[in-house]
């Protein structure tokens, strides 16, 4: 229930729309009720008048009731139309807002806080689960409140005519509008929740299947994967069949209760007519009115059977909204320091409370404008160092400062604005080459784009494409070759000027000729910026460059490359290894 209340709270800004929708739904029900009750009474009265004297026929007011019938008919059509418009407009506005709200909450979580999530599953929350929340308002909340008020109003009207009739109607409506929906709620809870979970799993699986297609096929895992999706499909259909059965039960029960209430109304009315407490024409009024009254509660059983699913969808969304960000952010950053020197002292960092230390007492100082190369085996902590300065991961001990300001006092966005990063994880978006470049600098002109492509040795390639800059790169850049994708990432980085440049294996996956050409361009790209090069290869590091070797989350060696290569502990071995490999 708390989840549902929370959904409603999200509708805050649309409170008046909500109210309008409920009032219009209420009017629709009442108009229909009025229409049928009046029509029944009118026909019976006219019939009775027709049987009586000529005087009685003349005295019969023909026009007022027929005008009433027309009024109710028009009111009903109008209110129904407007009510649906208002309800849907409010809901979809709210849903659109909710989507960007959820995405805005995903952003501080990324990347560490989302590392365990499948992107297809997150997508499902943004698209399908949000849609399902809309159903809560459209199918449950508004109809239920409208039915509640309408039922009370209609019972009161009947009670004004004859109190037992009012009571009987209220009883019937309560049965169909409360008892039956509660029954379908209980019956539908599990299947509808299960259906939400199954659809979510299926979406994530399909995304995985499409993106990992080559491996799944060649490893022969495709049939097993297809079987898994198909199993979910079959279970989903079975759950849906169960829900259809429950829907049938709900509709049947409502129909039966409506019919029996009407019959009871006739019996009751007849007794009252015989005891002259009601007139004859009141009888069809009661019968038809009772029948019409059930229009109010008709949609409730089907809506309530899906409530479990709506709640499950809400939970999936709230789970993201409630996730604590992996890193606590200050609300404001201090003024940008005059010098941007990085100083890390005894920094320890790990990604989970019990996990191994990724950085374990790291000491490192990088002065502004310095060029350093960081080397180390995979898993030594090079990427964690990058995550640390980009504020993607918090450090648990030690101190990390930039220009003397502790990193934890700086907002992540402000910290990241100082860096340009090229890494394996750099993502290409499914738009054009131009779209991908503009991410770095939205206002970049044509010339700047081409200059960036030249820097990354990609301009010639783009010129050969018939669509040039507008060529689509495919999802995650899959339409480009590995080397082209890599260079597009570099070109994008070249567009952005920031005090720091982090190059994480920038030339990995490039052929030696391109690599050699790029190295020169990269020096040019770095300019006077502080450059942190993470590399596995010592080739290309100049004698005077500073090299930092990281081992097991700690700085093992730090100094001029020339010195370390001669006097270091590990570096001489690495250099010899590489030279031997290259000379083979």
């Amino acid at each position, binding site marked *: 229930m708390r989840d549902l209340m929370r959904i409603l709270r999200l509708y805050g800004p649309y409170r008046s729309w909500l109210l309008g929708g409920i009032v219009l739904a209420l009017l629709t029900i009442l108009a229909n009720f009025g229409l049928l009750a009046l029509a029944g009474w009118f026909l019976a009265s006219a019939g009775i008048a027709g049987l009586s004297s000529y005087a009685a026929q003349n005295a019969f007011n023909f026009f007022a009731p027929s005008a009433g019938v027309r009024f109710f008919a028009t009111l009903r059509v109008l209110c129904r139309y407007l009510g649906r418009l208002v309800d849907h407009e409010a809901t979809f506005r709210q849903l659109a807002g909710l989507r960007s709200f959820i995405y805005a909450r995903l952003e501080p979580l990324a990347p560490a806080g989302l590392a365990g999530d499948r992107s*297809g599953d997150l997508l499902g929350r943004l698209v399908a689960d949000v849609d399902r929340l809309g159903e809560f308002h459209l199918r449950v909340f508004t109809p239920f409140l409208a039915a509640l008020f309408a039922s009370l109003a209609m019972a009161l009207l009947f009670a004004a005519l004859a109190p037992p009739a009012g009571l009987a109607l209220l009883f019937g409506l309560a049965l169909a509008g409360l008892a039956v929906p509660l029954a379908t709620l209980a019956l539908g809870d599990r299947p509808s929740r299960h259906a939400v979970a199954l659809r979510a799993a299926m979406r994530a699986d399909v995304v995985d299947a499409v993106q990992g297609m080559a*491996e799944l096929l060649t490893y022969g895992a*495709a049939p097993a994967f297809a079987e898994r999706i198909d199993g979910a499909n079959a279970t989903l259909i079975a759950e849906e069949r169960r829900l259809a059965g429950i829907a049938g039960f709900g509709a049947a029960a409502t129909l039966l209760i409506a019919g029996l209430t009407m019959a009871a109304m006739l019996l009751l009315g007849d007794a009252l007519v015989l005891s002259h407490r009601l007139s004859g024409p009141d009888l069809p009024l009661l019968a038809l009115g009772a029948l019409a009254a059930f229009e109010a509660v008709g949609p409730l059983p089907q809506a309530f059977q899906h409530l479990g699913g709506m709640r499950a969808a809400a939970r999936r969304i709230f789970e993201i909204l409630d996730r604590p960000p992996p890193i606590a952010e200050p609300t404001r950053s201090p003024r940008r320091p005059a010098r941007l020197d990085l100083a890390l002292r005894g920094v320890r960092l790990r990604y989970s409370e019990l996990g191994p230390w990724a950085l374990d007492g790291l000491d490192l100082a990088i002065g502004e404008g310095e060029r350093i190369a960081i080397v180390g085996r*995979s898993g030594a902590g090079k990427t964690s160092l990058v995550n640390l300065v980009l504020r993607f991961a918090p450090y648990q001990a030690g101190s990390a400062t930039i220009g003397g300001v502790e990193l934890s006092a700086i907002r992540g966005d402000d910290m990241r604005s100082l860096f340009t990063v090229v890494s394996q994880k750099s*993502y290409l978006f499914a738009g054009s080459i131009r779209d991908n470049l503009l991410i770095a600098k939205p206002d970049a002109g044509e010339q700047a784009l081409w200059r960036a492509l030249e820097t990354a040795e990609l301009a010639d390639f783009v010129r050969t494409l018939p669509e040039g800059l507008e060529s689509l790169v495919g999802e995650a850049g899959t339409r480009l070759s590995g080397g082209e994708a890599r260079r597009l990432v570099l070109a994008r980085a070249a567009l952005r000027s920031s005090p720091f440049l982090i190059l994480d294996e920038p030339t990995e996956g490039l052929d*030696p000729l391109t*690599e050699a050409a790029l190295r020169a361009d990269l020096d040019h790209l770095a300019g006077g910026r502080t450059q942190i090069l993470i590399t596995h290869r010592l080739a290309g590091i100049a004698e005077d460059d500073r090299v930092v070797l990281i081992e097991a989350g700690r700085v093992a060696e730090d100094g001029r490359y020339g010195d370390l290569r001669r006097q270091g502990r590990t570096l001489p071995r690495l250099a010899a290894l590489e030279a031997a490999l290259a000379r083979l």
Partner: protein
Amino acid sequence: MLADGSPREGRVLRRNIDARLIVAGRSARRGLAAAIALGFAAGLLVIAQAALLAGVVTALVFRHATVAEVTPAFAALAALFAVRALFTWASEIAAFRAAGSVKADLRRALLDHLFRLGPAFAAGEKSADLAATAIEGVEALEPYLARYLPQLALVALVPLAILAAIFPVDWMSGLVLLFAAPIIPLFMIFVGSRAEAINRRQWRRLLRMSAHFLDAVQGIATLKLFGRAREEIALVARISDQYRRTTMAGLRVAFLTSAVLEFFASLGIALVAVLFGVRLLHGALGFFPAFFVLLLVPEFFLPLRGLATHYHARMSALAAAARIFDILDARPGQPAGRTKPPPGPVSITCRGLSLATAEGRSVLHHIDCVFPAGKMTAVVGRSGAGKSTLAAAILGFLPLRSGAILVDGATPLAALDREAWWRQLAYVPQAPRLFAGTIADNLRLARREATDEALYAALFRARLLDVIQRLPEGLSTRIGEGGAGLSGGEAQRLALARAFLKDAPILILDEATAHLDLETESEIVEAISDLAQNRTAIVIAHRLKTVRRADQILVLAEGQIAESGTHETLRARGGAYAALFGAGISVAERSCAT
């Protein structure tokens, strides 16, 4: 690849979607027939119910009958309600039965076909779009099959039955209804074309929204790095809002249609009621026929109104089905046959092989080469030279423009049973995909029944065993999508371990040693050479230390084989190969010069 038909054909196809859906719904026939029969029976019951009710009310009001006199009628009425309730229940189940099997079948067909189309098709598509088509798209067919189609039959049957009941009782109201009824279908035809365009647009927007969101979620870290997350949030809001707008445009048409139809229906009711009122007042007619007809008039319009409501469902289903059939109509890249590939490390021959990308960009021209059985061939060349494309062609993912790939010197790849071919080989692509799950799950993708010992052995070969053993949960450690939780080099080695685990006679490695540190790389190169013993290995690489161990080196340049030979012969020749690796050496040597 998608466009294997002309645009004209496309239009014809689209026009036939109704028909194709009905064909797809063949398995739904019994459910549909039951739904129609139950609906029609319910319609007849409504007539009986109206007659009973009118009789009871007339007796009570005009003949002042006692309760005892009308008890049988009441009993009959109650029984009628019970039967109607049962019919309603049964018709819900029948309607779902009609849709359920079609949904299940189509979804399965769609997913099977996606796998058949393979990675070349997938590269041109957006996975979120495909997922939405398989889930929401198939879902959208349900109202069409379960509601619209039965309604289409009922709209012809029920009003006719009601008219048949009304005419003998009161021909005048019968005439009114007879003339009012056709207005409704006419109006729907008028609205139809507009609604169709809107629904198509709405469907496109949903797919685009899904695709954009997945892109935004997968690239969220990159967006943050560029400080573009705020703009992305605004973009998400804008795209969501566009979706709202098109959805509402469709709904507005649907709501207006129902409102107009409802208005006509109530106009009909009011007209009938007034006609009765006048005649009743003048004693020209009894109460029974009037009440009987009045009860039936709304029921007369009900199926027509229902048809209008479900007409929206039909439009939505057609738009979704168009996309579903588009995918189902796409042809797989390379035809596959049923021949079993010869066992063991066979040779692979490319003869006059030409290939183009899906967009028609020519990538490989007239390649003639042999990958000898049991030998390691390295494929080198500048980026974009077509190395990965060649691998994709050998895997059978890409359609050949001309030429052939022969297995064991004789059997064309196109004749091979594709799955049997894949069973023969282990492939590590350039950007290997790791799935969210445990490390063991990711490894067992290659061999489902592999023991833990086999997993450890593969991890050992890929130089990953110590890393995994140091993890508190070992093989059961959960990793995220794309290997989140592992370092780049560790993820790469896990992908390699998967290939080692498969232990297949043919090995295709596309830059499998990228992202590895020097020591690991040289160890892995050893491991790969060991593994490649007596296997046909195709290794795409940029690093000399991998390449030089190959028995044969192919140098690709601009889609053609520029040179081939061993490391020594190629180096001596001083051509493209020497140029390629001369550069690499000079960089290394320069730094070692002092």
